[in-house]
């Protein structure tokens, strides 16, 4: 269980990639939201949120991601997720969000997909 929450930002072929590690919960979701809003302000065509290193995600975090996805869609842009951890995928499936977000197995696929 990795309790250290971190977000690393990088640009890959013009796409903003946010690599999140640790647990995204009521305490850390606001930091994710701030980071997403900053990326949205840069008007990049796509934001990729890499959740490969995330060990826990709650409804607050999902709400942040859904909000960012909707804002991106409204602006004619997109937001994609990279998910490999079965626990995280399970939560997305339970909440039916796999039918909302484009979900990829790795960053390269998400950036170019």
């Amino acid at each position, binding site marked *: 269980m990795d309790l250290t929450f971190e977000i690393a930002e990088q640009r890959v072929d013009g796409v903003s990639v946010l690599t999140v590690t640790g647990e995204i919960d009521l305490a850390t979701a606001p930091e994710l939201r701030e980071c997403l809003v900053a990326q949205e302000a840069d008007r990049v065509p796509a934001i990729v949120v890499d959740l490969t290193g995330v060990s826990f995600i*709650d409804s607050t975090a999902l709400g942040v991601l859904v909000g960012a996805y909707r804002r991106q869609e409204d602006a004619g842009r997109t937001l994609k997720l990279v998910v490999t951890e079965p626990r995280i995928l399970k*939560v997305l499936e*339970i909440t039916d969000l796999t039918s909302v977000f484009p979900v990829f197995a790795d960053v390269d696929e998400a950036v170019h997909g």
Partner: protein
Amino acid sequence: MSDSVELTIPVRSDLLILARLTAAAMAARAEFGIEDIEDLRLVVEELCISVIGTMTTGTLHLRFTEDDGAITVGCSLWGEGDEDGRGESEPDELSLRIIEALVDEYGEDTVGGRRQSWIRKHRSKVAS
């Protein structure tokens, strides 16, 4: 015979991890599998979030009870100006979907004059 553990924490987002850790410890002690433990951790987080609602002050009171292969978690809010034991808002849709999918029972009742939300999850049977 049942075992109970009570946890009282201030309404602070960074302290909800204590509720999750307690849930995980209780579940491990009750010989829940890893998947069930992770489910319970998430459900307890959602239970706390739904009870807190929009409240930013007060005290969150949780009672974890292990009984016959199941864990019951009751959660209520104690605070100034909130005598009925709940925050102002109802659980959001995502939170409800998670709770409904991962527990065997959930509901609300009144304990000591305070409304509490509760969940109950049974240990999954392991295929032999």
